[in-house]
C-alpha cells in the first residue's frame, strides 16, 4: 500500500505519538509505532503501558485491504530528516518492507508484525463523560502538577488525585511537604462519585498535547482514565492506591491573616532565595504590627527586606519556610493579591488567591529546635 503525504503532516502526528514511547523498556516491541491503514484513514498508536496515545486522520490511501504494521523506532527520525516536502511511503504488508522516498532520497526499512503488540482499543464512554475545554484542563494540570512527588518509594504521591463527590471535582496533589487542592463544579458526569489517581508523568504528556480550543471528553475505562479530543485518544493507567484523607490536614483556626500583593512577594522571595541555606532552603517570615519581613541567611551572607501588607488581621508571628515551596505556588496563581493564613508555628500555612475559594495551597513550616 502506498501513502503519499506532506512531510509536515506526517511529522505532526508522529510528534503526538512519540510522547508515549518508552524511554527504556525490556519489551522491545514497545519501541515501535503501530500503524493501521484503512482506505480513507491513517492511525498511529504508541504505548509504554503507563499511557497510550492514538491519533487518527483522514487521508486517501492506495490500499487493497486494511493493513497493520509496526514501524521501527528509527522511522520517526527518518521522516523528520527527509529533504523534500512530498513524501511517499510504500509498505509491503506481507514481508514488512517499508520503502520511503522523498526527492532523490530513498530509505528501505524493515517493520514487524503486530501480533505481539499490546494494542489498546479506543472505547466509547458508557455513560456521559465530563467535557472540558483544552484551556480549562490545562489550567487544572498546571496548578497541581508542580507539587507532585518524584519519590517512587511512595507511589501514591507521584500522582494527582481527581476525586468526584456530589458533582464537585477536587484535584489534589502533594509531595507530603506541601499540598495543593482545587475544586470545580462538575456537570454532565454520569459515572457517580469516585477517585482517580493519575501518574504525574502521564499528565505532563497530556498537557503538551492539549490545545486551548480542544474539546476534551474525560471518562473512566476499566482501571484507566481516557481523554478523547481532536483526533487523539489518550489513556493513562491509574495508581491503584488509596489517597490519604486530605480534609484532616487543613487547619480550621487561623492565628494571622495577611493580604499581600503577589508580584511584590514573589520578587522579594526570589531575592531571598539567593541566600537561603542550600540544604533547608529556609526563609524567615516575620509578620509585624503592620508589615511583613523576609529574611534569609547562610554561609554566603544575609538578606532582609520589608514589604507592606494590604491588610492584616490577628497576631504577630514568625515562621521559617522552604522558599521554593512558596515561589512555586506563586507562579501558578493568576490573581493580583494573595491571602496567607498562618495557624501557628507548627500548623500548615494556607496560601490562596484573593477572593477565590476554589484554590487552596498548604505548606508545612520548617521546625526549629
Amino acid at each position: 500500500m502506498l501513502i503519499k503525504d506532506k512531510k509536515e503532516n506526517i511529522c505532526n502526528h508522529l510528534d503526538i505519538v512519540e510522547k508515549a514511547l518508552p524511554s527504556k523498556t525490556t519489551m522491545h516491541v514497545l519501541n515501535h509505532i503501530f500503524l493501521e491503514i484503512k482506505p480513507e484513514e491513517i492511525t498511529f498508536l504508541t504505548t509504554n503501558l503507563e499511557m497510550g496515545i492514538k491519533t487518527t486522520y483522514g487521508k486517501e490511501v492506495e490500499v487493497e485491504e486494511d493493513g497493520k504494521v509496526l514501524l521501527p523506532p528509527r522511522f520517526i527520525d527518518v521522516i523528520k530528516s527527509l529533504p523534500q516536502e512530498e513524501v511517499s511511503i510504500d509498505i509491503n504488508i506481507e514481508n514488512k518492507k517499508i520503502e520511503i522516498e522523498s526527492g532523490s532520497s530513498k530509505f528501505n526499512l524493515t517493520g514487524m508484525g503486530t501480533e505481539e503488540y499490546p494494542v489498546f482499543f479506543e472505547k466509547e464512554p458508557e455513560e456521559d463523560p465530563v467535557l472540558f475545554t483544552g484551556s480549562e484542563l490545562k489550567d487544572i494540570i498546571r496548578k497541581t502538577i508542580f507539587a507532585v512527588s518524584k519519590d517512587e518509594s511512595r507511589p501514591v504521591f507521584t500522582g494527582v488525585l481527581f476525586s468526584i463527590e456530589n458533582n464537585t471535582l477536587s484535584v489534589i496533589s502533594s509531595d507530603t511537604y506541601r499540598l495543593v487542592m482545587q475544586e470545580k463544579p462538575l456537570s454532565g458526569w454520569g459515572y457517580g462519585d469516585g477517585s482517580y489517581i493519575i501518574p504525574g508523568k502521564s499528565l505532563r504528556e497530556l498537557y503538551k498535547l492539549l490545545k486551548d480550543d480542544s474539546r476534551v471528553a474525560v471518562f473512566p475505562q476499566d482501571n484507566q482514565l481516557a481523554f478523547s479530543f481532536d483526533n487523539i485518544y489518550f489513556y493513562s493507567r491509574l495508581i491503584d492506591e488509596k489517597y490519604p484523607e486530605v480534609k484532616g490536614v487543613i487547619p480550621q483556626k487561623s492565628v494571622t491573616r495577611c493580604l499581600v500583593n503577589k508580584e511584590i512577594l514573589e520578587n522579594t522571595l526570589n531575592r531571598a532565595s539567593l541566600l537561603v541555606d542550600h540544604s533547608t532552603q529556609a526563609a524567615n517570615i516575620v509578620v509585624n504590627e503592620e508589615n511583613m519581613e523576609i529574611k534569609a541567611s547562610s554561609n554566603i551572607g544575609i538578606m532582609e527586606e520589608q514589604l507592606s501588607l494590604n491588610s492584616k488581621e490577628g497576631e504577630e508571628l514568625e515562621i521559617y519556610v522552604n522558599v521554593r515551596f512558596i515561589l512555586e505556588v506563586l507562579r501558578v496563581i493568576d490573581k493580583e493579591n494573595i491571602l496567607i493564613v498562618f495557624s501557628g508555628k507548627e500548623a500548615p500555612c494556607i496560601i490562596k488567591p484573593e477572593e477565590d475559594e476554589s484554590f487552596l495551597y498548604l505548606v508545612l513550616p520548617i521546625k526549629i529546635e
Partner: protein
Amino acid sequence: MSASRVIFLADMESFYASVEIARDSSLRGKPVVVCGDPRQRRGIVLAASREAKLYGIKTGMLVGKCLQLCPDAVLINPHMQRYLDVSVRVTSLLEEYTDRVFPYSIDEQFLDMTGCSGLWGTPREAARRIINCVREDTGINCRIGIGENFLQAKMACDCFAKKNREGVFELDSSSYCRYVWPLPVKELFGVGSRMEHHLLRMGIRTIEHLAATPRERLKKRWGINGEILWLNARGIDYSTMEGAVEERRKGVGHSLTLPRDYCNQKELEVVLREVTEEVCRRARSLGTQGKTVSLYCRGADFDYPTGFSRQVKLPAPSALTMEVFPRVLHLLKRHWDGTPVRAVGVSLSGLVKEHMRQPVFFSDRERKLALSRAMDEVRERFGTTSLFWFSSLTPGGQLFERANKIGGHEA
C-alpha cells in the same frame, strides 16, 4: 601553613598493662599480659608489659601462643573503663602544656606545641617535662615523637622514640630523609601488610624507593591513597587539627567483630538491627541526620577479604532506626552472597543538622521521632539493656553480650 609548626605525638607504653601495674605494684617487674577472654574466641593479647615483650609476646597474639612463649605470664582480663579514665586523665595533664590536644586513640594523643617554646623551652625539653609529669601522675611511661606535622610526629614516635632510651625523637623536613628513608617500606604510616606485599612486588623495598617512585604511577594505581603514600614517604602532610576533627564528623558509624562466623541471614539481621539502632542513637545525640547509609560485612580472614561494602541514599535525611534499618536490610539482601560474616559495620554519612526539619503531611514521622527520643532517654537513665528489640533475645543478638563492655572488652 607555616613550616614551623611543632607537633607532638605522645604514646603510652604498653598502655593497658601499664595501667594494671600502676594500680597493683606487686605486678611490677613481671611479664604482665592483658588479654580477652579465651572462651569467647576473643582470646588475643591486647597489651603486654615491657617484660612480657622480652619473651616475644606481641599485641594481637593468641593467648595460647603467649603461654607457650612465657608460661609464667600474668594474664589479666581487661578493665576498659579504667583505661578510659586514665586516658582522660592523661589528656587533662597534656592540656596543662597546650590548649590544642587531640586524642587520636586511647593511648595516643597529638599536641600542637607551636609557639610554646617561650613557656616550655625547646621541643625536646618540653617533651621531657611531659614525660616526667605523666609518669609522676599516672605511673605510665610515655614516648613522644616530634615533627613539623602529624605524620612526622607519628613516624618519629613509632620508628624512633619507642626504641631509644630517652623516649623522645625529633624529625623535621630536612632530617626526615636522613632517618626515615633507609627504613623498610612497611614502617611507613599507612602501609599495611597487603600494601607492603604490593609494593615489594613493584620492587619498592624502602621508604626511599617509595619516595623516588613517580607520584603519577602511584596515583594511577591507587588513586588518592597512592598520592597520600607518596606524600607520607616524603614527610609531607597537609592535615590540620581542625580538619582532622571535622573529618570525624562527616559520618556516624558503628562496627563490631562478631564472636563467631554468622552464616544465617536471620542472625545477621538481628545484629544489624542492633548496630543500626546504635548508629541512629549516636546521630540523634549529635543532633544530626544522615543522607546516606552504608553497610559492610566482612569475613574472618583479613588477608583474604570476603564480603562487601555498599551504600544507598535515603529519600530524606534521617536518624530513625525505623527508616534506616529497612535500607540496611535492602543492602544486605542485595549484596550478601552468603559467605560467613565475622565483622559488620553500619554508618550514616552526609550529615545535616537536625535543628531545622521539614515536617511532612500524612506521616507519623514526628511520632516516630518522639518515640526514638523517649527510647534514648530511657536507655540514658537505665542502661542500654533497659529497652531493646525483642530480636536481641534470639541467638544472633549481641546486645547483652556487649552491654557491659567497652570496645568489646570488659569494662
